[in-house]
């Protein structure tokens, strides 16, 4: 059981609009329902996404504004503060990790975070996920040990359990899943393809049930940033 109310401020650090909704929105909702403020530092606008809606309604040039609005809508559903960091999709691994970490550190400290949630590099598949997580780890590493927030990290690679073992936190999001699904559906351009695939699968039992089956549990590893290489 996670004692959500023991935290004072959560800071979520992911690179793309929708990373927060697919993987972590149930957790965010639990914190918000416990009265804990949550701030999302979103790295990019997902400008280089391939999904343009199903059928497509966005193009390469309209996608950033569309995803920005989807992100704002999702954060409203999740009742979470939003900061857009202004990096460019698919380029984070070519940025300076230390400059990113320095910026993140200042934002984490200014927010008074007691918990940082980010991706677990190199177990996060997308290069932006790994780079954002590595910068977030580095940001916490550079903080005074006494004032460091707890770090929970999301791993999604196929080899994650072979490498890291069982996750430390497994959260059942069923009690808030209606709002989690609403947050995901805010990302219309990105979610439609997945929802369409669900509908076409042979074991489709309705949107809510099928989504719950796939996305019910959210898992995190608790990370001591001094004990990891990335």
């Amino acid at each position, binding site marked *: 059981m996670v004692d959500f109310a023991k935290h004072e401020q959560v800071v979520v650090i992911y690179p793309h609009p929708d990373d927060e909704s697919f993987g972590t929105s149930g957790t965010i909702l639990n914190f918000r329902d416990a009265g804990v403020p949550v701030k999302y530092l979103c790295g990019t606008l997902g400008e*280089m996404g*391939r*999904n*343009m*809606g*199903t*059928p*497509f309604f966005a*193009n*390469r*040039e*309209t996608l*950033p504004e569309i995803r920005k609005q989807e992100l704002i809508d999702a954060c409203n559903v999740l009742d979470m503060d939003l900061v857009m960091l202004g990096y*460019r999709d*698919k380029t984070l691994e070519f940025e300076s990790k230390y400059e990113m970490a320095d910026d993140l550190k200042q934002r984490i400290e200014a927010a008074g975070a007691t918990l940082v949630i980010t991706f677990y590099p190199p177990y996060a*598949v*997308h*290069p*932006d996920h790994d780079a954002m997580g590595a910068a977030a780890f580095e940001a916490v590493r550079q903080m005074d040990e006494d004032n460091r927030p707890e770090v929970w990290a999301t791993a999604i*690679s*196929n080899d994650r359990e072979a490498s890291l073992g069982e996750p430390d936190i497994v959260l059942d999001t069923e009690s808030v899943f209606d709002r989690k699904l609403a947050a995901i559906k805010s990302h219309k351009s990105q979610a439609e*393809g997945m929802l*369409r695939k669900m509908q076409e699968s042979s074991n489709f039992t309705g949107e809510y049930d099928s989504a719950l089956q796939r996305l019910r549990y959210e898992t995190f590893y608790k990370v001591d940033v001094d004990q990891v290489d990335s």
Partner: protein
Amino acid sequence: MKAIDMEHVQTLLDQFANEPVYIHLETTNGAYAKHFDSNAHNVGAYIRNAEITYERGTIVESDGTYRVGLKTNGWIYAEGITDYEMNDNDQLLMAGHDGEGRLMVALEISRTPFKM
């Protein structure tokens, strides 16, 4: 965007010829190709706001999709184009989408830099 009208796209390509233009060119099979198929690997290339001048732009049909080539002092081309749009910023957007609407390739031409 709408399905390629070859004659119209050719007219638009002609309009951008012989003057400095910015191009955006990309292709990708996505950041999750290997994640979902261990035999695959992720492939992509991307260039945005390269300044070029082309003397001739040509669109060619091939089994229901299209190739577009620009003759510069070298060559630029894209394959698998299915859709196009002339947007409000007078940018010619061309892209190839798969059956699920995902972008697989894009070639765009503009007289002003693409927004960063």
